[in-house]
């Protein structure tokens, strides 16, 4: 956050929207600065895609179908590839607030005439756009050539997936934001983040589709928001979930966005109050 003062300059000349666009742009530019990180990041993504496509190929053992699996081998490979790509596309900085609270930098953000959560969200979008152009698209091209992943034919799949991705992204963002708000009450939030990451790994469907979970676990998983982050967009994209069922899941996703958003907003208000009481 080096060029903070310039953002407020544009504020008097128009509605709040250009300010947030400015944040998106700045955050995008900040990402370009790290070239080395970029190549390592791409390599990292390839490594994961390679491991999981190899894993599913080994489990299917050359056959096209597998007993107990609703996916064909080709669908399964596509699932592994796109779940990982969606996951990479949702990479976001998740402890910005914690760091700023510790250093005190957060007080500088509070005096800006913009909504702080929206400013952070804009920055996250900038980061994400950057990830799409520089990581997801190149990795998609490599994956399509190297790992037998299949793109969907129906245009509707793209539209539905785009909506599901935006909603899933929002759910993840709100969860991350909510967890980072804990830094207002706890000095060390790393532990919370580890827990969140553990839950995310297992229940988001990023690695194992929810279909493979034992039956007793499925109703429990339906009660937590994680599967709506990756499982739903990926399943829609590969055609595993279609039509009315897809629409139903999109609606549930939307409900989660509003519910979690509301909770987060209340916590944010409480956090603000706490900071002001402490004289921050």
């Amino acid at each position, binding site marked *: 956050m080096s060029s903070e003062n310039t953002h407020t300059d544009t504020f008097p000349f128009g509605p709040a929207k250009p300010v947030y666009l400015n944040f998106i742009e700045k955050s995008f530019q900040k990402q370009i600065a790290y070239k080395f990180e970029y190549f390592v990041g791409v390599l990292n993504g390839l490594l994961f895609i390679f491991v999981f496509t190899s894993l599913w190929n080994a489990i299917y053992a050359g056959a096209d179908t*597998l007993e107990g699996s609703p996916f064909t081998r080709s669908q399964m490979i596509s699932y592994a590839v796109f779940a990982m790509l969606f996951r990479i596309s949702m990479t976001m900085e998740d402890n910005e607030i914690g760091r700023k609270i510790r250093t005190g930098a957060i007080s500088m953000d509070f005096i800006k005439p913009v909504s702080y959560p929206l400013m952070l969200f804009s920055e996250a979008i900038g980061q994400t756009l950057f990830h799409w152009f520089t990581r997801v698209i190149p990795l998609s091209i490599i994956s399509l050539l190297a790992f037998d992943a299949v793109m969907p034919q129906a245009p509707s799949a793209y539209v539905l997936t785009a909506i599901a991705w935006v909603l899933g992204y929002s759910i993840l963002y709100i969860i991350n934001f909510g967890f980072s708000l804990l830094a207002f009450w706890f000095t060390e939030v790393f532990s919370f983040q580890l*827990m969140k990451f553990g839950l995310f790994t297992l229940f988001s469907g990023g690695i194992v589709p929810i279909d493979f979970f034992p039956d007793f676990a499925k109703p429990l998983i339906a009660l937590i928001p994680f599967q709506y982050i990756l499982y739903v967009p990926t399943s829609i994209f590969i055609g595993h979930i279609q039509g009315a069922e897809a629409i139903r899941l999109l609606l549930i996703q939307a409900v989660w966005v509003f519910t979690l958003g509301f909770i987060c907003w209340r916590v944010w208000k409480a956090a603000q109050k706490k900071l002001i009481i402490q004289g921050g």
Partner: protein
Amino acid sequence: MFKNTPIYWKLVVTSIRAKMEYKVTFLFLLIALLFYYLGQLGVILIILVKFKNINGWSLGEMAFLYGLLVFSQGISTLLFSSLNYFENLIIEGDFDRLLVRPLNPLLQVLASSFELSSVAHFLIGSTALYYGATRSGLEWTFQKIVFFPIALAGAVLIQGGIRLAVAAVTFWTTRNRSLVHTIVYSSKEFILYPISIYNFWVQAFLTLIFPLAFINFYPSHFFLARDSSTLLFHPALQYGTPLAGLIVFAMAYALWKAGINHYQSVGN
């Protein structure tokens, strides 16, 4: 190198004290780490419960494979974790302070921070090893009992050597955060599963160039008495872990030495 052992020990004890200052935080971190690893383990478990085996490796065998990785990771974290933050020492200039002391700089770095989170590794690793050994009917013969600590030491040296090499790169680049992330952590993803699921070139890579397979895949063949004729190059590889560990660590230490020379010669 070891004549100043009491001093290093004092440095270690000091860093443990610093960590234990916050007991609740530590306990909470431990629980969180268990969560994190259960997430990782859960993925493997779900696949195995559903499909019975991964490339011919049963639930018990996979647990043993996983346990060997996580347990040796616990030891290497305990000993070498401070290397992950080595770039901070370089950037802040603290490393220069270590160089002027009449002690081995590497041992000073290693003693500077003490990662108690390795307790979580030990808990999960030993549970997985015990469960895996029992479930797969592993027979603890005399040879296996003797070889186990030796193989473990080799596995620790491989991981420690990798961390050391990545830290040594910092002498030239001053930054190594993303390298640590990929080479030390993400690469472990490869060996959560038996490497026989990968194509020939990747198996060769994980054996000869970046020998992670010696941490758990090859020694598991010996302990679980798996058919070693299906091994990649030679059945003898199942005993190769100690040698691989020594080679990796020696090469990493040479790189570290070269790094220090470079660092001093540019006038730091």
